[in-house]
C-alpha cells in the first residue's frame, strides 16, 4: 500500500499542485530531483526541495517496549507535595512525565498547591527530592511572591532540620530561599495568544534549561475566556495545547501541572451541578485529574482520573507553611 502525498506535513497549495500534476503517492516522487519536480509540478524550487526533504525524513518514529517504559518510569521520580496522604494516594507525589490537572472552587488551594510544588521540585536529591527548576506560567496574576518566599523558607527550615549526613549539609548550602527564587522562572501570560506562543517556544526553552522538572500553568481557563462566543475555536486551541503539554511532559521528563476552575452545568429541570470548566473534551486532555473540594470545613483532595491510581480521597490543610497533612490530633477532634 502506497502512502498518499496528502499525509505529508506540506502546505495545501503545494499538495494541490502535486496532485494536479499527477503525483499522488510518495513512490511517485522517488528518484526525482528538485529542478525536475519544480518543472513538472509547477512549484517553486524551494517548495520542491521542501517536498523532497520531507520525504527523506524517513526515520521510523521512536518506540519502546512496555518493559523499557517500565524501567523509565522507575527512574523518573515524583514531586512530593509535603502532604504525605496525598503523596501516598498518588504513589509518591505528582509524577514527572505526566500531565496533571488540579480543579476546584475558588479559595480551595489550587494556587497554594502549585506554589508548594514549585518549591518542592527544588528539594535536593539527597533529601528525596528532584532537585529541578520550575517554569511558572501565570495567567491571572496569582503568583504572589511574598507567599512563595514564605513557602520556600518553610521548606528550607524543614530540610535543614532533617539534614543528618555531610552530603545533606552540603546540599543545604545551595538550598536557600534565594536559590529557590532564582530557579523559578515566572511567565506572565495575559491572553491566549501569549499562552499559545509561549507553548510553541517551550521545547527550545526546555532544551536550554535541562534542569526544569516542573511546568505549572496556573489558571488555564482565564486566557480562553475571550473565546466564549466561539466555543469550537476554544476547543480546537485547547486540543492543540493538550497535545503540546503531553509532548513536553513525555519528551523532557517534566511534570506538567495545570489548574482549572469550576463552572455550572445546567441539567434541566432547574437542577445544576459544578463541573470543571473548559468543556468535556478538555477532560480527556490531561493524564491525572485532582479534584480539590470542601466537605464542611475540611479540605479534601480526590483523584478523579488517573491511568494508574485508584480514586482515593484524602484530607489536607493549608497552613502558614504551605500545603500540609491534616494534624492527626486535630483530625481526630474534627471527627
Amino acid at each position, binding site marked *: 500500500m502506497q502512502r498518499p502525498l496528502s499525509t505529508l506535513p506540506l502546505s495545501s497549495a503545494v499538495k494541490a499542485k502535486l496532485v494536479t500534476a499527477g503525483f*499522488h503517492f510518495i513512490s511517485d516522487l522517488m528518484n526525482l530531483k528538485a529542478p525536475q519536480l519544480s518543472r513538472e509540478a509547477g512549484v517553486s524550487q524551494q517548495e520542491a526541495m521542501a517536498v523532497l526533504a520531507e520525504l527523506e525524513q524517513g526515520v521510523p518514529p521512536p518506540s*519502546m517496549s*512496555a518493559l523499557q517504559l517500565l524501567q523509565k518510569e522507575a527512574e523518573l521520580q515524583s514531586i512530593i507535595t509535603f502532604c504525605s496522604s496525598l503523596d501516598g494516594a498518588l504513589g509518591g507525589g505528582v509524577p514527572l512525565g505526566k500531565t496533571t490537572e488540579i480543579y476546584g472552587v475558588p479559595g480551595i488551594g489550587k494556587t497554594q498547591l502549585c506554589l508548594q510544588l514549585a518549591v518542592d521540585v527544588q528539594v535536593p536529591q539527597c533529601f528525596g527530592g528532584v532537585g529541578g527548576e520550575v517554569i511558572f506560567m501565570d495567567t491571572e496574576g496569582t503568583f504572589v511572591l511574598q507567599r512563595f518566599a514564605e513557602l520556600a523558607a518553610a521548606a528550607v527550615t524543614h530540610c535543614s532540620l532533617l539534614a543528618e549526613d555531610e552530603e545533606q549539609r552540603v546540599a543545604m548550602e545551595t538550598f536557600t530561599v534565594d536559590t529557590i527564587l532564582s530557579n523559578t522562572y515566572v511567565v506572565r501570560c495575559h491572553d491566549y495568544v501569549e499562552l499559545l506562543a509561549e507553548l510553541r517556544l517551550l521545547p527550545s526553552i526546555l532544551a536550554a534549561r535541562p534542569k526544569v522538572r516542573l511546568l505549572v500553568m496556573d489558571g488555564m481557563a482565564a486566557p480562553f475566556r475571550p473565546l466564549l462566543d466561539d466555543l469550537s475555536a476554544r476547543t480546537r486551541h485547547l486540543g492543540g495545547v493538550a497535545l*503540546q503539554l*503531553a509532548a513536553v511532559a513525555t519528551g523532557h521528563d517534566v511534570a506538567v501541572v495545570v489548574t482549572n476552575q469550576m463552572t455550572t452545568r445546567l441539567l434541566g429541570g432547574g437542577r445544576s451541578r459544578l463541573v470543571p470548566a473548559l468543556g*468535556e473534551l478538555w477532560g*480527556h486532555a490531561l493524564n491525572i485529574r485532582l479534584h480539590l473540594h470542601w466537605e464542611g470545613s475540611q479540605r479534601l483532595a480526590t483523584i478523579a482520573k488517573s491511568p494508574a491510581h485508584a480514586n482515593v480521597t484524602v484530607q489536607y490543610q493549608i497552613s502558614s507553611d504551605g500545603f500540609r497533612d491534616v494534624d492527626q490530633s486535630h483530625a481526630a477532634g474534627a471527627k
Partner: protein
Amino acid sequence: MVVLRENMCPGLDGDLVSGLRAVGVKTVEDLVSSNIEDLARRCSVSYKALLAIRRVLLAQHTAFPVSGADLYEELLSSTAILSTGNTSLDKLLDSGLYTGEVTELCGGPASGKSQVCFSVAVNISWRLKQSVVYVDTSGGMTAARLLQMLQVETDNTEEQMEALQRITVFRLFDVYALLHCLYELRGASLQQAAVGGGSVKAVIVDSVSAVLSPLLGGKQSEGMSLMIQVAFALKTMAKDFNIAVLVTNHVTRGRDGEVQPGLGVSWSHIPRTRILLERHEHTSTCSATLIKSSRQPCNIREQLDLNT
C-alpha cells in the same frame, strides 16, 4: 493517477515516455483513456506496441474480482478473534476483537477507556502470546499499571517481563506523526516485530480523537482530509495484515444532553463496532453499551469492573 515512468512495463522506454509527455500524456490514466490509434500517429510509434503497453498497464492497475467462496475460505483461515480477557466485554464484541476490523471505545473523561485498552493489551500479550502495538497520544500510558494487571494474572516475573516486552509503545502527539507511524508500521515494523516472538495481532490507538479533534471544525478543510487519511490507513492496515485495531474516542453532548461519540458523522462509518463506556460515579465499575455492531443487536449493556 500514476505518472508514467521509464521501465514501468516492458517496451516503455525513456524516449517513449518523453515522446508521450510531449503530446500531453503524462499519467497512466491519460494513456489508458486516450485514443491509441491517434496517439500512435502523433508520437510516431507502432500501434501494436502502444496497445501492448496499455494492456500491461491496465493489468497492473486494475482491481481483480474475487469470488465470494474464495473470500470466505480466506476469511476462515486468516481471521482470528482475540479475547479481551473480560467476559462481559467479550459478550458485547461477540467473543472478542476480530482481526481485520476497527473497533472503537468511546466515553467521557475517566470513563475507563484507557483502562480497557491496557487490559486488552495485557491479555493479548500475556494470554495469547501475541505482539501488540500501543500508540499513546496523550502520554497516559503507564507501564506500572500494566505490570499491576499482569501481577494479578501470574506470579512468574519472567512471564511478566516477556509480556511487557511484546507490547511496543509509540508516543505521538500530532496527526502527521501518527500517519507516519502507521505507514512505517505497514512498511517494515510489522514484519520485524514478528521476529521478536508472536506477530503483531493488535494495534491500539489511545486516543485517536486527541490528535484529530484539534483539526476539525472552523474554516479549515484540511482537518477532515487528514481524518479520512488516518481512517483509511487504519482500515487498510487492519485488512491487509489481519490486525485487530482498537481506537478510543471522546463523546460530545447533543442539544438535549444525550451522549454521542465524537468526531462526527464521517468518522462514525469507520469503526465496525462501537462501545460506549459510562462510569458509575464514585465506583470502579462502568457500564458498556454496544452502540454499533454488524453481528449483534445494538444497545446490549454489560457492567465492567475496572479494578482487576
